[in-house]
């Protein structure tokens, strides 16, 4: 009797759990006056914490501009990269603005806005390296570093099957490891590597070249990640991206960080 009751309770609870997991609430009735934005804070120049612990970077400035445009109050939450998508799904924040590429695998989990930038991947090697080209033959048996769970780590494995791919929790660690001589090459966004090799910390290394971005892996560029079902918020972000592109805010932010166009080709043409 008691056991039967316990089981009934268990079944009820499981149903509840299952229901919660499946439920995909729409945000149609939600008033988005505040939006919490998740970012990593360890991926300069896109998002990083400065010496005083303040969030800075292209992603952060773009997010602030988008929020101004949408007339919403934004707060930032820093979150480790490999927990980013679960944290969004669990509601720890409402939007990911962390240089996240819009890939098919991620699109199964979350929704994305249109892209807000798209830059190619690149490979960097130590300055005295004998590697002269970014091909599988040239990198056979070499150790290539990349950040864990990124498009770059996947692309490195796909492009250089005969190299050993080593994956690090953040970009800082693979940079440290190539400086220490453990890695023969590192792969990441060209902008990230470029900023690093120009800094004192990256004095060890040079950029070997950029690589073509396989759309199967890299998807459609970098977008704002949102929960599926938050269609209203997605529409707000998409309109805001168009608006800051048109009114020159985007260009102003871009020029602060880069001396070239990071937006890439018009999405309509892709």
């Amino acid at each position, binding site marked *: 009797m008691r056991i039967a009751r*316990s*089981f009934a309770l268990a079944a009820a609870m499981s149903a509840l759990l299952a229901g919660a997991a499946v439920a995909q609430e729409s945000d149609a009735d939600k008033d988005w006056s505040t939006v919490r934005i998740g970012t990593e804070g360890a991926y300069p120049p896109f998002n990083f914490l400065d010496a005083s612990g303040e969030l800075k970077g292209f992603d952060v400035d773009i997010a602030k501009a988008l929020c101004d445009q949408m007339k919403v109050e934004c707060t930032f939450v820093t979150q480790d990269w490999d927990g980013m998508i679960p944290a969004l799904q669990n509601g720890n924040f409402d939007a990911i603005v962390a240089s996240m590429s819009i890939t098919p695998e991620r699109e199964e989990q979350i929704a994305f806005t249109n892209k807000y930038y798209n830059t190619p991947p690149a490979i960097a090697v130590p300055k005295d390296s004998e590697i002269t080209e970014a091909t599988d033959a040239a990198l056979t048996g070499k150790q290539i570093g990349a950040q864990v769970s990124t498009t770059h780590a996947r692309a490195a494995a796909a492009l250089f099957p005969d190299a050993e791919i*080593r*994956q690090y929790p953040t970009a800082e660690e693979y940079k440290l490891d190539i400086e220490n001589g453990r890695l023969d090459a590192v792969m990441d966004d060209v902008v990230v590597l470029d900023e690093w090799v120009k800094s004192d910390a990256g004095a060890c290394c040079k950029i070997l070249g950029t690589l073509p971005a396989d759309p199967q892996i890299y998807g459609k560029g970098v977008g704002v990640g949102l929960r599926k079902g938050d269609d209203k918020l997605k529409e707000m972000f998409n309109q805001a991206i168009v608006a800051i592109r048109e009114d020159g805010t985007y260009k102003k932010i871009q020029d602060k960080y880069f001396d070239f166009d990071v937006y890439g080709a018009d999405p309509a043409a892709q």
Partner: protein
Amino acid sequence: MSGNTPALAIPAPPRQKLKIGGIVAISIWIVIAVAFVIYFVGAFDITLIERFGWSYLSGLWVTVSLVALSFVFGAIVSLPVALGRMATNPIASGAAFAFVYFFRGTPLIAQIFLVYYGFGEFHRFFETIGLWWFFREAWYCGLFSLALNTAAYQAEILRGAIESVPKGQWEGGRSLGLSRTVIFFKVVLPQALIVALRPYANEIILMIKASAIVAIITVYDLFGETRQAYSRTYDFQTYVWAALLYLAIVEALRHATNWAERRLTVHLKR
């Protein structure tokens, strides 16, 4: 109020209360277990095993070999440390105390970072003294840190066990004209190991779980492979598999300890 209630009836009410509490507790556990089984059966996806099965097995092998080797090396290091802890010589006991104090008093994650990235900063020095081949490899760095860490704990287990052997055993050995070394290895140590067996098993179990942090220095142990699988699928069951595999290792160890205890104490049984 005065004594017509039989004394035996008095304990009954509190026992009733306990029963209800117990039923509630068990119901909660049953609910959790049933919800878990329902979740796991519902979420079970055979294609994931096809995709990640081999990487889980290789991760399992890395975890088991890493823990086994570092436990053995730790045991070898722990012997002089334990003897140092018991020594009357202030230099030996001071050095042994400092070793144990440092490795038990600081987090393993800090020790691993210190060895991997910290020693990496001095790679020119290690190249000069011819040890860079060792510290260059993440796997060796993990082995090195885990072995030293467990050596500190094992030294304390061993010291306690040796000190638990009655002094009379030493005196008896001496009266038979045995040398101190012979008494230690043939008389005292075997008896001490009976006392140490359970704490040793405990230490291995703790190490198996602690070893999961080598994933952050790019060693793909069971946990590292799990994070890979999770980052590709965002499916929570990848972590459930890892938990079940860790449970299986610990369960196997538990049986091995029981067997070893029966074997070691066979002379004490009637």
